[in-house]
């Protein structure tokens, strides 16, 4: 009883440690010091999720049954990393440059952003991975059972353990796998945690191995003697099966959804891969070092009939080494959990991007870009998918009864996901590969795999009738699931691998050659195949009728307001424009699509952008660019394009500067006229009425009162105008002295709101505020700041033309700034007026609204003096102004 309780306590403590590691890694990433998180060693260790519980426990079992065959599973990935690292580098670069989120996304994106292919690969991945997850749950349950037996405790309900392990893993994955919708789908917390698990499982296996060799067999020579004497017999290497298994494990290393996730999606730079190319084979070698000794000693020491899959646990337990057994348990536990977590993240991304989002988009097509936060939908669908994937794994475990030998289920899964390989390799190396080819290959391979391996794996008579395995379906012998086309005598696994992959490849090539790629497929093909020569030189969009503002509205819903605004501002700056709205050039659309696809997948991003840009997206020039096949042409045109881009950027800057100068000069000219007008009008009334008072006899007392108060009011109007002018001139010349005091943002806004509503006339403005977010302490000139706020609030009161005018004041913090947004529900400011409203005397409308048109000019000067900025924020529905203050002036209250 004590051991099992201790085991439970240690497992819980271990899980808490993982939580802590993941939590601190996420925090570090958020603060921007991701140095250690991006270290090549972390990347290398994260690849270790290749070694699941299947390899941790099952390799020893496999060695006990089939001798050295287990080595093939380690050799495949090592060969890929060492011998094919240039191919991997290409794959990883494509993944980075195209913002690929999963293997389904890669295939879909390469073949013309086809969602059908995305759905196909997703289904294949889910079907292929479910048994694998079940396998992990089974291994954890089995290992707990071992301890229970040692303690003579009867676990009444094995499924109970598996169920709670599944629940715990879903929780962990949901918390760290879907914390936020990263533009590039990187999960620093999870990667850090699995790197730690990688160390734990290696340490556990090495510790058990060391104990077996030096503690039980008297050193290396003793161990070798023992191996020689053992019955562990089948030393002869079966060439065919070895080659088949090695190919299979190489393919799986690339195509398993979880491997693709850590290898490609989580990859940050080339050096990570360079280190993994030698360090990961080393890791695998260390993992396999003690497999044979443990198997031999296990067969020797333990009673006949013991499950060799559990030798890693039972050998130390039989020697009374409980501590070592617990370490070994943690190793197996780590192997199982890290696999399940990453697999669930990878699958949930695919399910959400390729199945849930397209459906959601179809049913809410009209409202998608106007209402609702797409991010919330994506996050929710991912969370539900994670729970769904783990539930499937648990159900498979509960229904299959968990009887099979571990290795068999693993190989079934491997063969299933390996069906993606022809489409994957063809896609990145052969421009002739088409969507039809990929579909044909996948369908053929998937079908044969189902028929010859997956369905038979449940056992004869469960899914396929027993008669199939006697003399083929309906007596047709050449359709026998283990002897297709009359080829008999092969090992069933090898038979399935051979037929599924070869027919898959043949179908892929044949259908590709016979079909004609669409323009978009050609473009994508060129980008994928030529990723090293000319990254991103071909374009996916021609100049469409897109409105930058519509694009911004949509992007905010997907990327979130802050990220979208930063992206648009950067793009506008690159084009030499001020503000937030870049020209919707093809180049910009492509960048935007790539950013969006990091969140919702290539096919969905393309569809959403297509809704706004309208029409299909490839122009004749783009196709010509693709047709120029030689590398020289590519290079030459890339250089030309660079120059012409530079030129047009300069031209755009000059044009914008010139436009602005012209407008400014007209305004400067108008300035004197304006000032004259604004001063002379009140003076006219003053002079006329004072002459009337002086020259007219017999005025009544009432008349006198009235006329002198007109004089008084007009004098005040003059004073206010002069004050504003002086204020502005002082601010512009920088002679202003700030009175820095401490106050909260809420106080400043309260004061501004009170002052603005005091001189309000017309319909009352409904002001909406979020008081909790306003409790920020400021060290600034609160008088001046409140002057800015008063201006913005009373402008909303004057210009907001909604029937029920409303002003929302939003407060948010970014990493450097405090942002205070004033957003009303009126018709907003026309795009061509947006960058002149901050100039002097620029009243937007003709109608008089009382002021002299100096308010926003003063606001701009004040915010600049306070170290911040005020800008117009397009795409918010009504007029929207953003006051941006440096965070160094604030502190959370």
């Amino acid at each position, binding site marked *: 009883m004590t051991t099992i309780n201790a085991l439970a306590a240690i497992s819980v403590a271990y899980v808490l440690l993982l939580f802590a590691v993941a939590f601190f890694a996420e925090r570090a990433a958020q603060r921007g010091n991701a140095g250690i998180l991006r270290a090549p060693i972390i990347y290398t260790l994260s690849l270790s999720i290749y070694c699941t519980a299947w390899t941790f426990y099952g390799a020893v079992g496999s060695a006990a049954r089939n001798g050295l065959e287990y080595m093939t599973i380690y050799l495949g990935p090592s060969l890929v990393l060492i011998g094919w690292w240039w191919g991997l580098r290409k794959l990883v670069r494509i993944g980075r440059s195209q913002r690929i989120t999963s293997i389904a996304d890669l295939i879909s994106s390469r073949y013309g952003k086809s969602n059908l292919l995305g759905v196909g690969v997703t289904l294949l991945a889910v079907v292929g991975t479910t048994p694998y997850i079940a396998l992990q749950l089974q291994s954890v349950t089995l290992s707990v059972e071992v301890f229970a037996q040692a303690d003579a405790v009867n676990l009444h309900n094995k499924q109970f353990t598996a169920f709670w392990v599944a629940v715990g893993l879903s929780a962990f994955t949901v918390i760290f796998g879907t914390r936020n919708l990263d533009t590039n789908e990187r999960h620093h917390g999870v990667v850090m945690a699995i790197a730690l698990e990688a160390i734990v499982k290696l340490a556990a296996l090495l510790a058990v191995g060391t104990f077996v060799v030096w503690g039980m067999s008297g050193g290396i020579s003793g161990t070798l003697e023992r191996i020689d004497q053992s019955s562990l017999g089948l030393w002869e290497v079966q060439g065919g099966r070895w080659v088949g298994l090695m190919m299979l494990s190489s393919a799986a290393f690339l195509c398993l959804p979880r491997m693709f996730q850590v290898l490609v999606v989580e990859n940050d730079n080339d050096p990570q891969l360079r280190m993994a190319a030698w360090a990961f084979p080393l890791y695998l070698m260390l993992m396999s070092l003690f497999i044979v000794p443990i198997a031999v000693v296990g067969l020797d020491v333990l009673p006949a009939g013991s499950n060799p899959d559990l030798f890693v646990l039972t050998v130390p337990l039989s020697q009374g080494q409980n501590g070592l057994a617990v370490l070994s348990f943690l190793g197996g536990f780590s192997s199982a959990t890290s696999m399940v977590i990453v697999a669930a993240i990878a699958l949930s991304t695919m399910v959400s991007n390729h199945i849930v989002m397209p459906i959601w988009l179809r049913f809410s097509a009209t409202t998608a870009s106007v209402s609702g936060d797409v991010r919330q939908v994506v996050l929710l669908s991912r969370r539900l998918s994670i729970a769904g994937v783990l539930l499937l794994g648990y159900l498979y475990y509960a229904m299959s009864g968990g009887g099979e030998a571990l290795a068999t289920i693993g190989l079934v899964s491997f063969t299933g996901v390996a069906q993606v390989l022809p489409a994957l390799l063809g896609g990145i190396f052969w421009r002739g590969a088409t969507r039809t080819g990929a579909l044909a290959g996948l369908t053929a391979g998937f079908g044969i795999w189902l028929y010859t391996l997956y369905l038979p794996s449940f056992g004869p008579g469960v899914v396929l009738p027993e008669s199939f395995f006697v003399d083929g379906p309906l007596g047709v012998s050449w359709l026998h699931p283990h002897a297709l086309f009359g080829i008999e005598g092969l090992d069933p696994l090898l038979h399935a691998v051979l037929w599924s992959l070869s027919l898959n490849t043949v179908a892929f090539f044949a259908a590709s050659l016979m079909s004609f790629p669409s323009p978009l497929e050609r473009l994508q093909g060129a980008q994928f195949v030529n990723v090293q020569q000319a990254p991103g030189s071909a374009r996916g969009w021609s100049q469409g009728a897109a409105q930058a503002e519509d694009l911004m509205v949509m992007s905010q819903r997907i990327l979130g307001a802050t990220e979208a605004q930063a992206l648009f501002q950067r793009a506008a700056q690159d084009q030499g424009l001020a503000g937030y709205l870049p020209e919707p050039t093809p180049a910009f659309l492509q960048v935007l699509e790539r950013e969006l696809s990091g969140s919702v997948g290539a096919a969905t991003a393309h569809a959403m952008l297509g809704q706004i840009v309208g029409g299909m997206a490839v122009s004749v020039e783009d196709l010509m660019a693709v047709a120029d096949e030689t590398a020289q042409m590519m290079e030459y045109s890339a250089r030309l394009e660079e120059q012409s881009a530079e030129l047009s950027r300069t031209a755009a800057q000059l044009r914008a500067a010139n436009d602005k100068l012209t407008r400014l000069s007209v305004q400067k000219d108008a300035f*004197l*006229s304006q000032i*004259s*007008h604004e001063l*002379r*009008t009140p*003076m*006219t*009334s*003053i*002079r*006329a*009425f004072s*002459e*009337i008072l002086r*020259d*007219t006899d017999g005025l009544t007392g009432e008349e006198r009162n009235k006329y002198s108060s*007109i004089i008084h009011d*007009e004098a005040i109007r003059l004073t206010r105008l002069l004050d504003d002018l002086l204020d502005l001139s002082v601010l512009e010349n920088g002679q202003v002295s700030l009175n820095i005091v401490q106050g909260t943002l809420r106080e400043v806004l309260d004061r501004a709101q009170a002052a603005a509503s005091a001189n309000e006339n017309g319909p009352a403005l409904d002001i909406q505020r979020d008081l909790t977010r306003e409790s920020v302490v400021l060290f600034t000139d609160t008088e001046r700041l409140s002057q800015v706020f008063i201006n913005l609030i009373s402008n909303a009161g004057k210009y907001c033309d909604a029937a029920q005018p409303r002003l929302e004041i939003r407060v948010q913090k970014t990493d450097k700034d405090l942002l205070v947004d004033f957003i009303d529900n009126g018709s907003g400011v026309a795009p061509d007026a947006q960058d002149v409203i901050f100039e002097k005397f620029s009243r937007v409308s*003709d*109608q*008089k609204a009382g002021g002299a048109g100096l308010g926003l000019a003063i606001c701009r000067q004040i915010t600049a003096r306070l170290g911040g900025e005020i800008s117009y924020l397009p795409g918010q529905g009504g007029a929207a102004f953003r006051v941006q203050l440096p965070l160094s002036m604030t502190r959370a209250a």
Partner: protein
Amino acid sequence: MSGQVLLIEDEPNIIEAIKFILSREGWHVHTHSNGVDAADVVRSRAPDVLILDVMLPGRSGYDILRELRDDPATAALPVLMLTARGQSKDREMAERAGASRFMTKPFSNAEVLDAVRALTSVA
């Protein structure tokens, strides 16, 4: 002295002042404060003298005046233009548009009376 004066101006206080000054001397003063339909109002009122401000909501005084001069019915109507933007080019623009007289704000009350008298005696 009596006659019809039409005043087109948008500042309420200036309207009140001019109305006071002219009414005391026996003029009937009608006012209108919007540029958009000002020309129609002029045609329907058919005043003896028109006092026209330059900066009006909706349409500029120059524009209104050009329309009136193109219309034979009002081509010879005496017009006194008022402006608050006392630059020389404003005077030129007023003359080109066809103003009979031009006055920069602020003006003295006597100036306004003199101008209106002079315009009606010519007519």
